[in-house]
């Protein structure tokens, strides 16, 4: 284990400055922040070195003091996928704080870095002895939960949009005819029809269609739907990556 990096003593001003910038610790009263800082173990890591590996016991929460770190996972065929990039004062390996048994991902230094580590047992002590710290942890976890729920809602929305797009495209393929405005679907299609064909509610189908109409992807009349920009709808339906190399057609 590397010695404490010069200039990063546990309660030094540099350490305090970093903690004040981190979301978890920033609102702690000064006295509590200093107590937290005393528990920090600074550690210097070389570029390319792993700070911890996926599946290892989660024994500390980490705060990046300087340098850059990436959080990664290995795919089944051995490729490294970046989950996120960690910036200064950001927390990673939080599993080591809020009591998960192992780290869900690995962390690797992108350049020489200094990391402040709060060992799991120190973290637990602080929860017990400093109500302000416990409150800050609750707030942090609540924020992460909100972010996760928001992402789940996004994924659900994306799935419904894909279904609606696919229904429109299939109908256009089978019944459509080219007009000046685009590809007009050849059967009358109410919002209710679209909702039931897509397995969603009337309000979702309506809202989605209106949204696409505003964006110029479709022209949605009361019972007539015209696909104005077919490829945009295909991109939604098939989750295509944006095309490289130039402005959109």
């Amino acid at each position, binding site marked *: 284990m590397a010695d404490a990096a010069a200039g990063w003593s546990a309660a030094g001003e540099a350490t305090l400055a970093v903690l004040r910038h981190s979301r978890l610790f920033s609102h702690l009263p000064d006295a509590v922040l200093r107590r937290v800082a005393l528990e920090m173990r600074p550690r210097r890591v070389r570029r390319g070195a792993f700070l911890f590996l996926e599946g290892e016991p989660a024994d500390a929460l980490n705060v990046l003091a300087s340098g850059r770190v990436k959080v990664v996972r290995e795919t089944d065929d051995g490729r490294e996928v970046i989950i996120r990039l960690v910036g200064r004062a950001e927390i990673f390996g939080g599993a080591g704080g809020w009591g998960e048994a192992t780290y869900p991902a690995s962390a690797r230094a992108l350049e020489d870095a200094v990391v402040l580590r709060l060992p799991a047992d120190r973290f637990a002590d602080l929860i017990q002895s400093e109500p302000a710290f416990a409150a800050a942890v609750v707030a942090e976890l609540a924020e992460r939960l909100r972010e996760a729920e928001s992402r789940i809602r996004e994924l659900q929305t994306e799935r419904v949009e894909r279904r609606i797009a*696919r229904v429109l*495209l299939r109908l*256009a*393929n089978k019944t459509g005819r080219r007009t000046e405005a685009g590809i007009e679907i050849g059967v009358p299609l109410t919002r209710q029809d679209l909702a039931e064909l897509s397995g969603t509610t009337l309000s979702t189908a309506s809202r989605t269609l209106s949204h696409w109409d505003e964006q110029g992807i479709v022209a949605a009349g009361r019972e007539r739907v015209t696909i104005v920009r077919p*490829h945009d709808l*295909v991109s939604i339906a*098939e989750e295509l990556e944006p*095309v490289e190399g130039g402005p959109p*057609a």
Partner: protein
Amino acid sequence: MVGQEIGAETTVEDILARHPNAATVFVARRMHCVGCEMARFDTVAEAASIYHQPVDELVAELRRLSAPPREPRAAADTGR
């Protein structure tokens, strides 16, 4: 449809229906045209525009892959 009849205004579906091996051109250029619901309507020119591919090159490549193989010359033809 012989290779030469493929042009910028030919639809993707038409090309693929008559020359399935033309699919290799779209796949190699990372164009999602094969199996696309809009293949019936999209012309080669439109597909080229969407995927930022030079249309003349694309047409030429599709013609090359769609043309029937050349017949070998009969021995008598080569006499001068």
